[in-house]
């Protein structure tokens, strides 16, 4: 008997008798003979908990994580400190184990969290409408593309060459059947180039903030040229304490990866994607949205609302096929933002700006290192190395310092978090100097 089931032999006999069949096999009578497996699954027999733990522990030990080296890897996910209260709250079964809040009377906790989360995302992005989260960053970009295409009924996407490559690839894959095309916007010295109003066949313009190479884009300037297209910005939410909000610069949709808000690296997921938009797009939003209301006794409460947008009601006419949020990860996000608080978000952003600037200046002073661009940066910057960047990464990693993400042949993207001190940065400079000598 498995340790996760409770049916004893007596139970089984009583239950079969109540059903009126002889054996469990009789319950599978509808499965035609021709498609029955007729043999045991070729998967090893079950193991005791201790052995499963040991196997997983051994696998984990084969990985070199941010625990084991000084890591400057970023490029979409970042090694920020996750405060202990997040572990504590997320491990509560009342948050960990329920399903989507279909019965609001017994789901007020989860629904209120969604409402608080939506408020926080709306504050960060400066846009009035946020859903309760989507899968993750790049697929949120693709979801913004679908919204823009169905809303504007136009077929061209303009994508900055400095948008995160995963976002570009995800948009391209997802839009294969839409009859849309993707055109690239060139990037010069780190910045997306757009100097005239886009054509009236354009559904959306996609830009990263900061972009993939770490540069801060001039969103207000870009938005002057959006014409009838929607301006979609993929932002790093943790930088929005110090950077102008997308909403105040004319952005229509702001999406992005939420991992930086209190979620672990987890080798890429699960995390959450955030999705915020202007009021005009409220009824085009994908995903779950929580709203405030009252109960029959006049008490304040929360429900899933505007559900007629969604697949379980509108089916083939739904605004998206998505049915879940990333509720638990979004909860980590809103706890993290409460933990940072209004001042802490700014202080953390300012710390990143200063350390990133220091790191960039220190590394750029090394022979064989040039800046990829000289635009202002917040938490990440790109360098051009005199040697193959992939080999440089190998060289440094062997010395306990992972210098960042190697791209193209000689590009290196270096990310800073509050966990990388001046001493760590100085150590990186030493190792990099050695690698390039």
């Amino acid at each position, binding site marked *: 008997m498995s340790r996760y089931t409770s049916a004893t032999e007596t139970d089984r006999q009583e239950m079969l008798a109540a059903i009126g069949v002889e054996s469990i096999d009789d319950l599978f009578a509808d499965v035609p003979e021709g498609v029955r497996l007729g043999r045991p699954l070729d998967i090893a027999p079950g193991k005791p908990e201790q052995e499963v733990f040991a196997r997983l522990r051994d696998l984990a030990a084969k990985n070199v994580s941010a625990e084991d080296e000084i890591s400057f890897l970023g490029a979409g996910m970042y090694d920020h400190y996750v405060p202990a209260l997040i572990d504590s709250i997320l491990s509560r079964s009342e948050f960990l184990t329920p399903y989507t809040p279909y019965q609001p009377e017994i789901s007020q906790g989860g629904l209120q969290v969604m409402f608080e989360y939506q408020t926080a995302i709306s504050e960060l992005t400066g846009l009035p409408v946020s859903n309760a989260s989507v899968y993750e960053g790049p697929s949120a970009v693709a979801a913004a593309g679908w919204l823009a295409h169905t809303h504007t009924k136009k077929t061209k996407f303009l994508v900055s060459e400095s948008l995160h490559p995963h976002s570009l690839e995800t948009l391209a894959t997802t839009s294969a059947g839409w009859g849309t095309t993707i055109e690239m916007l060139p990037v010069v010295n780190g910045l997306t180039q757009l100097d005239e109003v886009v054509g009236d066949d354009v559904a959306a313009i996609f830009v990263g903030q900061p972009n993939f190479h770490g540069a801060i884009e001039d969103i207000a300037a870009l938005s002057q040229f959006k014409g009838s297209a929607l301006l979609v910005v993929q932002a790093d939410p943790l930088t929005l304490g110090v950077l102008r909000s997308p909403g105040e610069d004319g952005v229509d949709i702001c999406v992005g990866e939420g991992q930086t808000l209190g979620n672990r690296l987890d080798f890429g997921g699960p995390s959450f994607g955030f999705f915020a938009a202007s009021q005009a797009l409220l009824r085009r939003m994908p995903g779950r949205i929580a*709203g405030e209301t009252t109960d029959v006794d006049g008490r304040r409460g929360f429900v899933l609302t505007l559900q007629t947008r969604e697949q379980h009601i509108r089916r083939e006419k739904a605004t998206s096929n998505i049915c879940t949020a990333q509720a638990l990860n979004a909860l980590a996000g809103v706890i993290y933002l409460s933990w940072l608080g209004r001042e802490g978000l700014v202080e953390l952003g300012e710390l990143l700006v200063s350390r990133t600037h220091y790191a960039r200046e220190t590394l750029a002073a090394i022979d064989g290192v040039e800046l990829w661009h000289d635009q202002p940066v917040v938490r990440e910057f790109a360098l051009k190395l005199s040697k193959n960047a992939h080999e440089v990464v190998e060289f440094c990693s062997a010395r306990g310092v992972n210098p960042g993400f190697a791209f193209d042949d000689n590009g290196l993207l270096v990310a800073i978090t509050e966990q990388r001190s001046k001493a760590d940065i100085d150590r990186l400079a030493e190792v990099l100097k050695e690698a390039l000598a």
Partner: protein
Amino acid sequence: MSITENQLHADPSIEAHELHPQRSAVIETEQQRDHAKTIYEKSKPGRRAFVAPELDVPKHELPAKFRRAEAPKLPEIAEPEIVRHYNRLSKRNFDLDSGFYPLGSCTMKHNPKLHERVAALPGHARLHPLTNPKRAQGALELMHSLQVALGEIAGLPHVSLQPSAGSHGELAGVLVTRAYHEDRGDFRTKILTPDTAHGTNPATVTMGGYEVVKVGTNADGGVDIEDLRAKADDQVACLMLTNPNTLGVFDANIEEIAKIVHGVGATLYYDGANLNAVMGKTRPGDMGFDIVHYNLHKTFTQPHGGGGPGAGPIAVSDRIEPYITKPQVVKLEDGTFDLDFDRPKSIGRLRGFQGNFGVFVRSYAYILSLGGDGLQEASELAVLNANYLLAKLRELGVTDLLPPAYDRLCMHEFVLSGAPMKRELGLKTLDLAKRLLDHNFHPPTVYFPLLVEEALLIEPTETETKETLDAFAEAMAEILREGAEDPEIARNAPYGTPVRRLDEAGAAKRPVIRQPL
């Protein structure tokens, strides 16, 4: 019958003050006064939980042009109150670890506690997704092992772990179908879905750029073969099917269905929402399916998290393999593992990085714990529990007013119709569901599948005891008995929950979806 004082006292789940606001003996606790206050309403300027690390480098400021003038209005609050706030909120949730959750189509089975521990090991939790594969061998080995096991369970050898949820897996399935056809110069326009399908199926078809064509259901709850034959033509790219379907019925004509679909050159897609019924008994690949998605959060115990995260890997047959997402985890000849980006016919990527790895850790641990034999037993007991619960509801006369939509053996779930109850007692399925809340059970899925009037879709799962199933059946019977005497009680239920029925129409008419600050 009306609710009396005695009953109120007998049932501690009913809060007396809600029915009798004038009763002065009831003390309103701090928690009740605090009712539904948001974290923003507990904020006070100057409070904080975060202390920034010391600035150990020269201060540098962004150019004024890019700097935000006013900080976002996040809460200002210290750690103790953050913890209390969210602990209080948690107590306003019903959860699987506290009670029976027979939500049809959602497979609310126990979430083993070991899984949280192994997912949190730093080697997993702090592993950056862009770590060189040479230094992420443990993670890649885990993913490869999971791929192999999932492939064996589905009877389809090639697994892509990337999709983030069931709906995302469906989209992957539709996109590989498109790539498969178009690679042969075959441009098709339609995808068939049964009228019993989950809403995600037609929604996915539209997002994949195809037209939805509905196929009818026969008297046994399976696909209407004649309707399928009439609609299957050379413009059909795919048939999306769930088997057992959303009515809890295994379609015994599956071989015939596969023949018809393959006969017109279309692919056959398996929505794995109901895979928990058939592990080790039959496999989608053996039934003739080309593409399957798994819901790791249903069948393979990833906790649902209040609505995510999940993961929706797909498995495909040899002819579809060239098109699945990249990168793929592969095992090299020297026994090491790598990420393969060199897949020229791949549809590309559907998200960042390699998928929801934390979910893979839990699902792999589950498969190790149960093994092949245990997985088969899990499905057998899931089906046993469902059939037993149905038998018990029959024995107690519940099915007189809530007859099964299809009166036969079921698989891991079954559908009742509340139509006679509505007619005879004036109680809707919604009322029954709300009254179940007062009995401390999570109600089954209601009003789905759409095909069944006043539907109630019940999936007990294998991890529930016979005693729990008996208690649930008794509660159902009790609600009907009570409803026969005084239907008003259920119509106004629930009573003992943190809030009672909520004004959903008001919320939709004038949406308040963020707090004004």
